[in-house]
């Protein structure tokens, strides 16, 4: 896996042949039979999936992972957080644990219950049961298995069935989120207008216009500062931010709904965030006078052409979900003064948290990062099933598999392992009979 081959050709086209985006998605659909990346009420219920179905999933997900991650995979190192190190080891930790945890959740609430959990982002804002938390966990399982095989920690025949457990868990969540059809935003034109009409109407009804340039600048600082806080709190991963949309707005224009998690109290290092809301949600309403093309990927990140989409912002409705358990009826509408105050607190918290992280030794930062990935990828679902308290101690302790990978991955191999994994589709080569 850790090879010296130039990755540049693999960045331009998936496996040197399939493009990114809509054209790539269309091409993958031409190549894949049966279309198991699509959900039906029949195929999400089955525990057993045929090898050809599973390989179809693998083929699509290899491209999907590349489509979302390849460009990001070049971002290299952080001088603050050993991110590639914690990311690779966490894949082993997740692969060790998740199929069993997913089975336990399914056993506790039933398949219908998993689908119901997947419905949450249709009716709630500020929930981590969202696009990223559906798309990513099964990816981590495949990536972890691939690393385990590369290091000789497992054999190709071991635990194969558990991959299918991870896939079906994701597909059932996605079925709750989307219903029948494509499992991911990529198959739906890179649009993710998940929220139901009554929530969309409520958000639009609370719009505060930002005609005053000074107020627009206040919001821009609020948006950026809280987003940065979310990234730092989550050890530079995207679980601190999530977008849905675009939603059409009456009279023209569109809305993007964005969550920033500021005070995830399940992380021991979150103390500088004390006093901040658990999550703030920005319903951003755009009424552009020129074409703006919006896409949202399966990590819930918005991209636009032209790129400065915020210049077209017309108004916002911003809400705080003060605690993780605050019901939708308890959302707090924020005004401009609230945004100024939260920006100020987030700036101070970011600096305090930065100093805290900078003072930690490297191994502790790797352990923290592993915990972010291994906990956050399944905590929302486990909590919804009432199982988080029993699962948390198992996740907090490094498994034998993760410990076996620690040596090489923490000491220099992570970057050379991660790049090819993300870029070349190695985790998703077809399985053979047997």
């Amino acid at each position, binding site marked *: 896996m850790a090879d010296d081959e130039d990755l540049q050709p693999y960045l331009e086209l998936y496996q040197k042949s399939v493009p990114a985006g809509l054209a790539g998605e269309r091409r993958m659909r031409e190549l894949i039979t049966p279309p198991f990346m699509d959900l039906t009420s029949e195929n999400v219920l089955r525990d057993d999936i045929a090898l050809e179905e599973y390989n179809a999933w693998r083929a699509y997900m290899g491209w999907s992972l590349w489509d979302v991650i390849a*460009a*990001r995979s*070049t*971002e*290299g*190192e*952080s*001088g*603050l*957080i050993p*991110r590639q190190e914690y990311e690779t080891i966490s894949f082993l930790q997740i692969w060790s644990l998740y199929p069993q945890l997913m089975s336990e959740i399914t056993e506790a609430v039933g398949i219908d219950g998993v689908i119901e959990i997947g419905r949450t982002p249709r009716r709630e804002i500020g929930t981590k049961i969202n696009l990223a938390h559906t798309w990513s966990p099964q990816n981590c399982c495949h990536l972890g298995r691939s690393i385990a095989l590369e290091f000789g920690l497992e054999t190709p025949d071991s635990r194969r069935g558990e991959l299918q457990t991870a896939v079906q868990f994701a597909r059932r969540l996605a079925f709750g989120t989307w219903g029948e059809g494509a499992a991911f935003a990529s198959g739906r034109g890179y649009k993710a207008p998940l929220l139901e009409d009554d929530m969309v109407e409520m958000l639009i009804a609370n719009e505060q216009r930002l005609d005053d340039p000074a107020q627009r600048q206040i919001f*821009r*600082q609020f*948006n*950026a*500062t809280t*987003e*940065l806080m979310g*990234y*730092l709190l989550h*050890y*530079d991963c*995207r679980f601190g931010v999530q977008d849905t949309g675009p939603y059409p707005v009456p009279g023209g224009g569109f809305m993007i709904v964005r969550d920033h998690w500021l005070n995830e109290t399940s992380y021991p290092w979150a103390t500088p965030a004390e006093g901040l809301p658990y999550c703030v949600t920005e319903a951003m309403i755009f009424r552009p006078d020129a074409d703006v093309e919006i896409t949202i990927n399966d990590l819930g*990140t918005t*991209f636009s052409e*032209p*790129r*400065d989409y*915020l210049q077209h912002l017309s108004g916002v409705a911003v809400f705080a979900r003060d605690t993780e358990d605050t019901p939708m009826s308890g959302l707090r509408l924020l005004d401009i003064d609230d945004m100024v105050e939260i920006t100020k607190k987030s*700036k101070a918290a*970011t*600096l305090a948290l*930065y*100093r805290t*992280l*900078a003072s930690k030794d490297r191994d502790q930062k790797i352990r923290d990062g592993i915990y972010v990935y291994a906990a956050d990828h399944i905590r929302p679902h486990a909590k919804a099933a009432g199982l988080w308290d029993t699962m948390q101690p198992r996740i907090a302790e490094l498994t034998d598999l993760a410990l076996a990978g620690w040596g090489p991955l923490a000491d220099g191999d992570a970057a050379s392992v991660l790049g090819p994994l993300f870029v070349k589709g190695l985790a998703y080569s077809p399985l053979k009979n047997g």
Partner: protein
Amino acid sequence: MSGQREIGAGINVMEFAEPITGRTIFLDSPDQVLDFIMSDDVESSIVISRGGTTTFVAPALTAGVRGLMTLQGAPESHLGILSREYGIPCVMSVTFTEGVETSRGEIIPADGTLVTLDIATTPRGRVLIDDGADNG
């Protein structure tokens, strides 16, 4: 931009009609980041960082640097996303053709070099200095 020469180019995150000018500083450790934000030069500086991750330069973002350049990464990287949200000009994966060597052998402008970022178009952004200026 006559009278200037190109010393580097990379991937421009977002279009800005007007070029920006500032003095460069290469930040290579969290301690350097923390010292930098206590200086008087934040708002006139263009920070160079190695990676495209966002958290490393977090305090510099909140402190309001004039611009960013990275040696790695792409607009889809976390720092690319955050620079866009702040509206801070950012050119990523810059390859410099002249300058000084870092401890790892990368070529970058010497700290304090006055550079101009030509960021009018995407995807390519250019780094310029005045003709005759010393960059080493």
